[in-house]
């Protein structure tokens, strides 16, 4: 017994307890406001692994987002023989963007703009509701850093082991562990860079070419750049990207209000903090046992108990860390929890906390999101399958022919957005009788017929001729129209010009 006591005493001396069964961790919030200096060197952070619902949610999101990123290009989506069968493809060479059932031509890039606007509005809404939830769970920087830390943990152990290893002299084991870690990091980074180029070419083809050394130099260049940035941003730079490089923290701070849910230390419940022994009364003191588990878990190197801070990405790992401790000391969970500034104020006044997800700001964001989404959907469903552009010759604007008639020339660009070839009939609608002719295409009863391949554009130079005196006004409006056999039609206005009467 005496021996056992001694052992326990020695262990207690080595790692003092904040509460019975809860170790006080010697963790320093290296990035807290108090430690801030202008020319401070970056201090490494060794986040401790935590277990809990938020950690589980983060693992699940990590698997889901990375799964989508790495696997999406391999998904097939048959579109017929003339077009690629990759579900998501940015085809620069062919000038098309494919996204499942959506196909966008370069002239329809506004759909991409609309998509970006939708993404921005979704981010506004999510931020107004749940604070920096994007930063904490879904941002690539967070996801890949999380993955890199997991790889680091695999090779170097959890927090304490990593700190010890960092201080240890360079032994063969340390060299092996560090090399192994960087090797895994580089492998992940290379896979990230490699997956990027799959979105711009047919995935199986480019992958095979890539490993045979036959892909275009740009493919290797972009894979290389993405490998380098992934390795640097998720391996070395980590939280500095969020704190110093990323503009989002500043913008998102402006999007939240006192009703937004944020990771909050409930100071009213936690203070005054201090160590606690089993059996001691909880009255007259706060629930925080000052074990610093929240600080040790934080990947940003801050102490959430200092309140809302610019560095905080709302990843909620401190909630998991604290809940574990609260369970051990027998206090209710949620000393650190998603809460609002308004509720903190209410508690201080002894009022009941209230969560208001529906408020003017969120309703507005949701309404604008729904409106833009509806416009996009409508535009997509009403997307033209035939298009016509008319370009009038300007040098010269008109030509007088030898018999005194006047002729104007136009270049028609006829777009066939369907995947099969179609025959189109070109017609001219004008207030005066005018003749329509074209180079290389015969006109039959003042209409031109021509075939256009599937998913293609054809330019056709046409001439419109007015007999002497037929064009009364110097400038006369015309309408060109194209129509296929099924009645799919497009038209475009133009102008017929002639000499002003002297």
């Amino acid at each position, binding site marked *: 017994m005496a021996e056992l006591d001694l052992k326990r005493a020695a262990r207690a001396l080595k790692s003092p307890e904040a509460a019975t069964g809860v170790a006080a961790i010697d963790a320093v919030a290296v990035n807290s406001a108090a430690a801030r200096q202008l020319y401070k060197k970056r201090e490494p952070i060794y986040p401790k692994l935590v277990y809990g619902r938020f950690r589980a949610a983060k693992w699940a999101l990590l698997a889901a987002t990375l799964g989508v990123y790495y696997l999406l290009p391999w998904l097939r989506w048959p579109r017929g023989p003339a077009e690629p069968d990759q579900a998501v493809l940015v085809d620069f060479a062919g000038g098309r963007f494919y996204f499942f059932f959506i196909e966008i031509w370069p002239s329809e890039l506004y759909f991409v703009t609309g998509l970006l606007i939708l993404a921005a509005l979704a981010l506004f809404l999510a931020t107004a509701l749940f604070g920096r939830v994007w930063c904490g769970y879904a941002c690539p920087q967070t996801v890949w850093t999380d993955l890199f830390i997991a790889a680091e943990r695999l090779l170097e152990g959890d927090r304490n082991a990593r700190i010890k290893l960092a201080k240890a002299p360079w032994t063969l084991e340390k060299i092996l562990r560090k090399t192994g870690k960087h090797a895994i990091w580089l492998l992940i980074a290379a896979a990230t860079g490699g997956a990027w180029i799959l979105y711009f070419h047919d995935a199986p083809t480019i992958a095979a070419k890539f490993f045979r050394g036959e892909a275009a130099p740009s493919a290797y260049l972009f894979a290389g750049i993405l490998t380098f940035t992934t390795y640097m941003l998720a391996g070395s730079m980590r939280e500095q990207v969020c704190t110093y490089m990323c503009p989002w923290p500043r913008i998102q701070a402006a999007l939240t209000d006192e009703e937004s849910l944020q990771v909050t230390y409930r100071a009213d419940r936690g203070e005054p903090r201090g160590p606690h022994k089993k059996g001691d009364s909880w009255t007259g003191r706060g629930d925080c046992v000052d074990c610093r588990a929240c600080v040790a878990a934080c990947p940003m190197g801050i102490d959430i108990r200092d309140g809302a801070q610019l560095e905080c990405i709302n990843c909620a790992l401190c909630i998991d860390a604290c809940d574990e401790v609260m369970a051990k000391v027998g206090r209710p969970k949620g000393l650190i929890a998603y809460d609002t500034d308004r509720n903190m104020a209410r508690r201080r006044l002894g009022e009941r906390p209230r969560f208001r997800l529906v408020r003017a700001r969120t309703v507005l964001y949701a309404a604008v999101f729904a409106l833009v989404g509806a416009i996009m959907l409508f535009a997509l469903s009403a997307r033209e399958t035939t298009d016509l552009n008319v370009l009038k010759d300007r040098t010269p604007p008109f030509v007088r022919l*030898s018999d005194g008639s006047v002729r104007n020339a136009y270049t028609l660009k006829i777009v066939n957005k369907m995947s099969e070839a179609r025959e189109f009939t070109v017609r001219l609608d004008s207030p005066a009788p005018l003749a329509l002719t074209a180079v290389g295409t015969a006109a039959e009863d003042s209409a031109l017929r021509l075939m256009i391949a599937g998913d293609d554009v054809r330019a056709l130079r046409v001439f419109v001729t007015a007999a002497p005196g037929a064009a009364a006004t110097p400038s006369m409006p015309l309408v060109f129209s194209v129509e296929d056999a099924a009645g799919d039609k497009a038209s475009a206005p133009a102008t017929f010009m002639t000499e002003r009467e002297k």
Partner: protein
Amino acid sequence: MAEREIDETSGVETTGHAWDGIKELNNPLPRWWLIIFWICVVWSVIYWVLMPSWPGLTGHFAGVRGHSERKNVAAAVAALEAERQERMARLLSVESIDAVEQDPQLLEFALNAGASLFGDNCATCHGAGGQGAKGYPALVDDDWIWGGSLADIRRTLQFGVRSGHPEARLNVMQAYGDLGVLSGSEIGDLAEYVRSFSGNSASPEAISRARPLYETHCVSCHGAEGRGDQALGAPNLSDAIWLYGGERADVAQTLRDGRGGVMPAWTGRMSEEQITALAVYVHSLGGGE
């Protein structure tokens, strides 16, 4: 080594240099900066070896890789021409030039090639859109001095007009006034008569005075009714298009001073394929016969 001196305020080592009692701190360069600096130094050495770098007395060190931008450009041009070769060859292999317009792909190729050749070589005189100018025929209308069929246009392009080439199209519009063949009043009467072909009013006296003169000097080329002759390159005088202007004074000047516009021969300057593409393009401008 001298003893290191640490500055009290900043805690940084000094260099030992002092001016007016101010000591210089020995702040090290940032590590990231140094790393990039050394990478650049190493890279520059590699570059010297691989790429053309050092000048010499008779030339320059060409580098191990033998890189040369001039060679690259030549290779790129050769590659482009090799790529075009097949279609360019088809332009000549078709049985007649008219067949080009029956093949949509070949037509598109010829029109694009022709458009760029036209911009480089023809637009200076004939205008960017082929609209022409006084003395430079418009190529967009349907009036052709030497013929507007594809074959005629190609021939004009190949050998030119009064270009000095042995096969050039050649004729002479004499300076009837300057040579003393016709008097001033005769030229005035003739101008009025010629303008009457295209529906302009003319005095009957002038016409009756001019008709014998026209029969003597003009009819052999321009025809009895002034319709011209493409085989001789004699312009049609009865239509609405005048190369040198259709006012009385313009026509009189033409009769007095003569006309002799020059179109250079392009054979030898352009390949036959290029000339064919250009002919197809000019033909497509609108006036092709």
